[in-house]
């Protein structure tokens, strides 16, 4: 289990937003991605998670090592907290005890019979983060995990993260706030912005360019 990224370039909306990124994430390590809004933190995480193809470069990690947590928590507001987490526990085959333990770790056990739609924004976020624990996957890709969490919840989550690293997990985190993880390295994405704006060939040209001979 090791996440290695070599000379990666990623694109959003047909423009290359980051290029030349290389790093290696070993068990027990965390890497915090920094940079202003719009630099491409989310795009980089989605590319590593396999939701979009890289423009160039290589990502070497087993896809079943990665657990991705996006801005959205993927909760069903009509279902209870319990039903939401149990669903993900069954998807990842980790069983109901893991689901109960995850709720316990993020201090949601008291809310387990409430509908997820009735939770506050911070509680929803905590439920979204509890999903990471039931995935049982070692490398967490976290996109702004602390949004709408209060200070106590941020500390709680930092504790969960620290325990995960201690058990040999790893985490790639895009965040603007300091999680207080002294073992985490930082990576400022600003230098990886391309010098010249560069468009990527669109999907249509990729697919049909050779056949119809359209200019790339």
């Amino acid at each position, binding site marked *: 289990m090791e996440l290695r990224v070599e000379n990666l370039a990623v694109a959003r909306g047909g423009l290359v937003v980051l290029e030349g990124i290389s790093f290696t994430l070993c068990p027990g390590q965390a890497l915090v991605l920094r940079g202003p809004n719009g630099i491409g933190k989310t795009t980089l995480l989605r590319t590593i998670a396999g*939701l979009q193809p890289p423009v160039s470069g290589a990502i070497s990690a087993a896809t079943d090592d990665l657990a991705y947590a996006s801005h959205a928590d993927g909760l069903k507001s009509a279902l209870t907290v319990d*039903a939401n987490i149990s669903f993900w526990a069954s998807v990842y085959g980790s069983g109901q005890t893991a689901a109960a333990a995850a709720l316990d770790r993020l201090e949601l056990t008291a809310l387990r019979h409430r509908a997820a739609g009735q939770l506050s924004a911070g509680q929803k976020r905590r439920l979204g983060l509890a999903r990471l624990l039931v995935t049982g996957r070692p490398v967490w890709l976290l996109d702004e995990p602390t949004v709408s969490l209060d200070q106590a919840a941020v500390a709680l989550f930092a504790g969960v993260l620290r325990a995960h690293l201690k058990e040999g997990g790893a985490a790639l985190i895009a965040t603007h706030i300091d999680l207080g993880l002294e073992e985490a390295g930082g990576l400022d994405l600003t230098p990886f912005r391309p010098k010249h704006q560069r468009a990527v060939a669109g999907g249509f040209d990729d697919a049909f360019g050779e056949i119809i001979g359209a200019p790339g």
Partner: protein
Amino acid sequence: MIALLARDLSLAFRAGGGFGLGLAFFLLVVVLVPLGVGPDSAILAAIAPGVLWVGALLASLLSLDRIFALDHEDGSLDLLATAPLPLEGVVAIKALAHWLVTGLALTLAAPLLAVLLNLPAPGYPWLLLSLAVGTPALSVIGAFGASLTIGLRRGGLLLSLLVLPLYVPTLVFGAEVVRRGATGLAPATPLALLAAITAGSLALLPFAAAAAIRVNLR
């Protein structure tokens, strides 16, 4: 997989879930057509197969955009795409859930509603059979259409336009089975063609839909 099916079904039966929407629409069509056409039972018997099939088709069209749109909005689709389930399986399960909630319900309700349209008695088993064989194709074709329009807000118009031509063969052969059954002709040929369309859609479209989802999630 089973957890996903159970989740989708339990969401469908909750408030705002869409169960009953298709059924209510089907009921409306079948109740309103005799009022509009008039009480001539010979005319009603002649148009019954077509009206029942068109009603079932439009009713199943009504809830198609829910198949993926809700999961895309709340982010579950991203998470499902990175989960250990194959995306083709996710599509197949979601189409199955859609069929159980709309197609199966419409199939079971159709014989009751056919009374209102004075469908000749020999047509009833064929109506039930043709809907049971044909509606899975509607759900899986619809799931394919829904996967193409993921991420478009108010994509319902485009979805209907994309899906309607694909629904035509199912409608033609489905209604033909009932018409032939009702008038005492042999319905085996259109039934075989209907089953072929369903089998082909079930085999191919989950892959096409999964590919479309992968492109749309980029």
